């Protein structure tokens, strides 16, 4: 009996020793620090001084008025001189020609809706700037969050897919799922040889004015390398809903070196670059789509993306 009691006591002590040795996952410390930095940053963005907000409101209003004035002058110039040779003139020339023709055929037809039908950017107002979350995938569907009028659906085009048959991309549980963050987008595949693969969505209608934001942030996990791409309408071929006639599929990019654990990355629109010298910066008023690109040289690939959101000023 005594022996049995002693054995039970020793077993109990072993349990306590095991419990004292319990250690958190090795990467938890870094994750905690990352989380704290992220929350601090969000807090700073949310609690900006009233004076700064007031100044920002005046600046936004002023910028809006100036943009309207410039747009009016440009429209006037195009109407008077249709062959004007400006960098972004191609799609506007078409628009104007069509609208002019329509106006001539029907003098009472309104010009603006016709223009908007040809170029959705003409009817797209700037985003409010107050709803930065694009998608955290926690709703488990392939649609981005319907905030601030944004609509779009995630898909996973690969070079091996026939055009227009890219599968929809549904979120799956994260390997390190927690109560607050269960799901993320995940793509995985073998060697690719042509242009690679992507995780992407188009804004619908195919133009979104993101000028109220300065970039995006997201979590991603590799290992490997991906490119974040913001595509203007001007790099998407006309057949695919854009306005590009030459040098198409040349989006503004940032290279992201991933690690084997989730990390948070920030990409500012001003940092994005197109291939080639002397290319203009991204026109955030005319976004067609956002994408994470995987180049053939970075395949096989195994990429996770989560918590995509715009960065506020």
């Amino acid at each position: 009996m005594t022996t049995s009691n002693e054995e039970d006591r020793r077993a109990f002590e072993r349990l306590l020793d095991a419990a004292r040795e319990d250690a958190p996952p090795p990467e938890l410390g870094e994750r905690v620090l990352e989380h704290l930095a992220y929350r601090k940053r969000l807090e700073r963005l949310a609690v900006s001084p009233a004076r700064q907000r007031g100044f920002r409101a005046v600046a936004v209003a002023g910028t809006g008025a100036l943009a309207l004035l410039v747009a009016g002058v440009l429209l006037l110039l195009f109407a008077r001189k249709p062959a004007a040779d400006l960098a972004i003139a191609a799609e506007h020339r078409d628009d104007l020609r069509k609208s002019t023709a329509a106006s001539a055929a029907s003098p009472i037809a309104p010009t603006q809706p016709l223009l908007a039908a040809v170029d959705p950017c003409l009817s797209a107002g700037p985003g409010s700037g107050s709803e930065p979350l694009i998608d955290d995938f926690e709703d488990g569907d392939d649609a981005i969050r319907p905030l601030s009028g944004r609509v779009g659906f995630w898909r996973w085009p690969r070079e091996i897919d026939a055009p227009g048959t890219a599968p929809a991309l549904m979120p799956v549980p994260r390997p390190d799922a927690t109560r607050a963050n269960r799901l993320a987008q995940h793509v995985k595949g073998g060697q690719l040889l042509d242009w690679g693969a992507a995780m992407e969505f188009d804004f619908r209608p195919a133009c979104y004015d993101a000028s109220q934001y300065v970039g995006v942030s997201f979590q991603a996990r590799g290992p490997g390398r991906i490119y974040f791409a913001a595509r203007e309408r001007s790099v998407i071929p006309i057949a695919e809903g854009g306005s590009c006639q030459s040098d198409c599929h040349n989006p503004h990019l940032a290279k992201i070196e991933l690690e084997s654990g989730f990390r948070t990355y920030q990409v500012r629109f001003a940092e994005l670059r197109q291939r080639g010298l002397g290319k203009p910066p991204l026109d955030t008023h005319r976004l067609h789509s956002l994408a994470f690109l995987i180049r053939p040289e970075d395949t096989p690939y195994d990429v996770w993306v989560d918590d995509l959101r715009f960065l506020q000023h």
Partner: protein
Amino acid sequence: MAGKPSLEALLVVPPLAAVRMPRGDGRLRAAVRNHLGLVWRVLRRTGLAPADAEDASQDVFWVLAQRFDDVPERAQRSFLVSTALRVASDRKQSKWHRSVSAGLDLEARASEAPLPDEAVELRRAGALLDEALATLDELERAVFVLAELEQMTRAEVAEVLSIPEGTVASRLKRARQSLETAVRRLRARPRSTR
């Protein structure tokens, strides 16, 4: 020309943590490094599943980060322990915790497959102790975890839990007796039913 960075180099975006840690976070980093193990064990032994304990660890250190200048370094340990107990208690009372705890238990039991691995044995021992700890009331459990597992002094435990030292002693004695009985009963149970 030779010193000009390449476009490829310009396009590399550093991870957020590499550039976004605000000033003063060296001390916060040290607090996380020194006390994360303690916070983790308190959260786990007071009944949170690993995934929940990870979230809760972030919450605990977030509370510390907000009060960092008010909490002297020597009081950080007590502050973190009492915050961890409160966070764990809140989480256990939440609707979400109640709804998924059954599923998490199933996961824990699934991990009891016999593997010749010391880590798995340790985990199994931890699960057995957790099951026994679950038979205690919340105060006894907290007293036992702090005094016996974290080896805090009775005075420290009394301060953290805001109870007299005498109560700490009596609750600790009772908790130990209850636990020994519970562990004996659980060990006697056939493995297949665990």
